[in-house]
């Protein structure tokens, strides 16, 4: 039976609530499952939001075939090329998270350090919060605050709205 992105998140949260030996394997599994939850969620966002565009290579590439992005790079670079700040932040974070996931999955001779474990959790939360923020608020400056004031600069100076609630 097919699974949803939500199920991948559930998988990661279930892992968070347990622990097994060796700890190194456990931490690697958390990094991998967490990364895939973030990656698949971001990919779903690109697939479902019609205003966003997929980029298989850099928009200015003279040789698109040669400059073709990798399958994971395509996702984070498409977010970055949107030039929407909150999406660019997700893209740049996914790059860091992907690098960590590759270390976790392929570089068995390297140790997963306390920095790696801490960074993986930060990347995981940051991607999820920002994707959800973008889905609810669109191209707004990411904030965890509940209220924002919208300001627009016009001919008559800066015009501000009342407080807007962000969910």
């Amino acid at each position, binding site marked *: 039976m097919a699974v949803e992105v939500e199920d991948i998140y559930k998988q990661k949260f279930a892992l968070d609530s347990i622990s097994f030996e060796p700890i190194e394997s456990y931490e690697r599994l958390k990094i991998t499952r967490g990364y895939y939850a973030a990656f698949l969620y971001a990919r779903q966002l690109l697939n479902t939001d019609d205003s966003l565009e997929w980029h298989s290579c850099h928009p200015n590439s003279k040789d698109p075939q040669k400059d073709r992005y990798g399958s*994971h790079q395509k996702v984070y670079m498409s977010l970055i090329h949107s030039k929407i700040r909150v999406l660019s932040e997700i893209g740049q974070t996914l790059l860091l998270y992907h690098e960590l996931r*590759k270390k976790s999955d392929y570089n068995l001779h390297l140790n997963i350090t306390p920095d790696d474990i801490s960074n993986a959790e930060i990347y995981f939360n940051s991607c999820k919060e920002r994707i959800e923020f973008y889905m609810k608020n669109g191209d707004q400056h990411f904030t965890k605050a509940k209220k924002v004031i919208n300001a627009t600069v016009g001919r008559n100076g800066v015009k501000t709205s009342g407080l807007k609630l962000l969910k």
Partner: protein
Amino acid sequence: MAPRQPETKEQALHYLLEDIVEGYLVNQRGIASVSSFVLKGFLKRAEENKEGGLDAYYLAKAMINVLQGRLNAAEAEFKKAIRISPNDPIILTNYSVALRLLNKNAESSELLIKVIKSFGFVDKTMLNNILFNSIPNLEPTYLQEAAEYLQTDEMNDDIDNLILLKKDLQRIDVSLLEFQEIMGLLRPMVNKRTRQQFIPRFSIENGLDKYLKIEIFLNVNTEEASELNSEFFDILMDYVFENDRHNLLGKFSVVLKQLESRYDGTENPEALYLGVNEELVA
């Protein structure tokens, strides 16, 4: 430990300089902070002992400005100290550090080479300082000059690494200007927030993804490293969006880590540049 009691004003300035350097500028740990009370205390001690030597007085004021992050004011005080004692290697080497913090890397290296050649003064950190000056522009000329003069081969690997990294950046379409932009954002932040030596390690990913990986190792704990990463991320994003430099994103992976993370099993962990990884893994 009871505070030392200087017998002369000259000695008092000497002790003050030692307190500033050893307490707040070398062997730092964690996120740097210095209270305004301490700074006021240092300034008071400098003023009270001004007659102990104007060169040491201006040097102390320069160092206090460095602590406050007021680098232009520090430079002005260093110049006053140098006007009085133009050949003092201690003043000149400290001034070279301030120049580096001001991103005047070539000037800083020229000064260090002058100190080495003209005064025969060689401190073990000087070659490292020239190396750190060389990193933002990947320009090994001054390092080569100093190493040749001192007839040492201990910097050969670093010199080779600088040359090779500059060449390899082209393979992933990262220009020297882009590299300099990232260094220009990263180094001042690290200096300001930690006052620790900026020790990067580079490697290039040229498989399915292409980017330059920059790891900065600092004497911090995991929480402090996270705080610095978050701060750098915001600085980078602000810079990209305020200056329309979107091309920088996706080309660099910058992570600040604690010193211990350098030794995670990486082969040749002390190297400045680890080379190109071309494994095609997704």
